[in-house]
């Protein structure tokens, strides 16, 4: 398992070298979206309309942060459970997005889309909201402010720690890890 420092937006050269279990420190620009925002984003894509951010190489962070304290860009900001985005993620990947950050397993359609379109599903540590929030240096709501914590934000991160769960080769760290430690009788 290797460690990489990468800058988002990503390229297919970046994602091709990553394997399930690798640790990545991400810097650069990410976009936040949960289910309610994904529903709207995918509707736009299906109608052939522009998204509120450039989708090419984009990394989407599944998060609904706490409100920022005065002077902070954002509050606590750890990942939310990703399966709720399973029905939307393949469309996002098909249109050029290359990364997702969340927690918990994805369905086969998402794993297949990662292989087909060169995308990566990264896991961040759920419940480490204070630590992860501090890695976010700038945050700005760019769409759907009425969704509150679920609005789409453009965030700038520095050395944001994630682990590759699903890579472009069809590997799944959750299955590999469990296989290694499960005690079978």
């Amino acid at each position, binding site marked *: 398992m290797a460690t990489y420092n990468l800058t988002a937006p990503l390229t297919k050269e970046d994602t091709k070298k990553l394997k399930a279990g690798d640790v990545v420190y991400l810097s650069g620009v990410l976009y936040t979206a949960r289910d309610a925002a994904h529903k709207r984003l995918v509707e736009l894509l299906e109608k052939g309309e522009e998204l509120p951010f450039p989708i090419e190489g984009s990394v989407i962070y599944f998060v609904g942060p706490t409100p920022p304290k005065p002077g902070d860009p954002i509050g*606590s900001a750890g990942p939310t459970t990703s399966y709720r985005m399973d029905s939307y993620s393949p469309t996002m990947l098909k249109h050029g997005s290359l990364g997702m950050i969340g927690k918990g397993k994805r369905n086969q359609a998402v794993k297949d889309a990662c292989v087909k379109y060169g995308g990566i599903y990264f896991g961040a540590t759920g*419940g480490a909201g*204070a630590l992860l929030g501090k890695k976010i240096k700038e945050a700005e709501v760019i769409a759907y402010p009425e969704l509150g914590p679920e609005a789409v934000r453009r965030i700038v991160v520095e050395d944001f720690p994630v682990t590759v769960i699903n890579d472009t080769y069809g590997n799944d760290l*959750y299955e590999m890890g469990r296989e290694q430690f499960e*005690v079978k009788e």
Partner: protein
Amino acid sequence: MREVEYNDIVNAVKNMIKVTATNLPEDTLKALEEALETEKSEVAKEVIKQLLENAKIARDEERPLCQDTGLAVFFVKLGADVRIKGGLLKDALNQATKEAYEEAYLRPSTCEPFSRANLKDTLGYNLPAIIHLDIVEGDKIDIEYAAKGGGSENVSRAKVLPPAAGKEGVIEFVKEVISDAGGNPCPPITVGVGIGGTFEKAAISSKHALFRDVGTKNPDPEMDELEQIILEEVNKLGIGAMGMGGTKTALAVHIESNPCHIASLPVSVNVQCHSSRHAHITI
């Protein structure tokens, strides 16, 4: 009859909510430190290290431990000899929830079930609180509180087993729930198991079981033994911290058992993530 001021309840509960959002309780911290010692997976160890570092940042800088600051859940034992001056207990708990969550920059996480509209500007910031009330002897108000996150709640399940299923049936059901959950509920988890009663009694018991401190013993020797058996079985699943594989999937299993109907064996499994934010005050 002892008189307690409504505002005194509001202030005490507000303080408890704010402190709990940023301070991981001692029992959970200790359990995570022990898990770091015994965990065999290097990947899972790294996750647990991040959780301990997160707890330190949250405490030192007063930042919420997790962005999911939960729904406010209360179990209250109200002494029959208490009279609350100036308002109702339920209103005091809701007011404390609304004010604490808003003042401490915690997330408003309540919404309409279908439109998903946030309730912060209509019903009130993070309202309603979930309140379980019991009237007991005495002149005190005993309030247990937890900030209950959604990820671990989403994998929780209840079922009424046939009596013949027995202990084996309960063990298998808990294993099935935790196995299906994988990394989604943010392990290492605490598993609350409610046994017996009726369908809803089992569910409420499984919730209340999560309020007990990790590391404490079940006073019922039979249930204590069952807790140890289930814990061992769950940790054989190999799920590990955040589901990345490991030997510490659960920190503890807590059981609350009740008498039940001769025809039924209800069982409920309520899961608590590693960020087990719970507290207790007596007024």
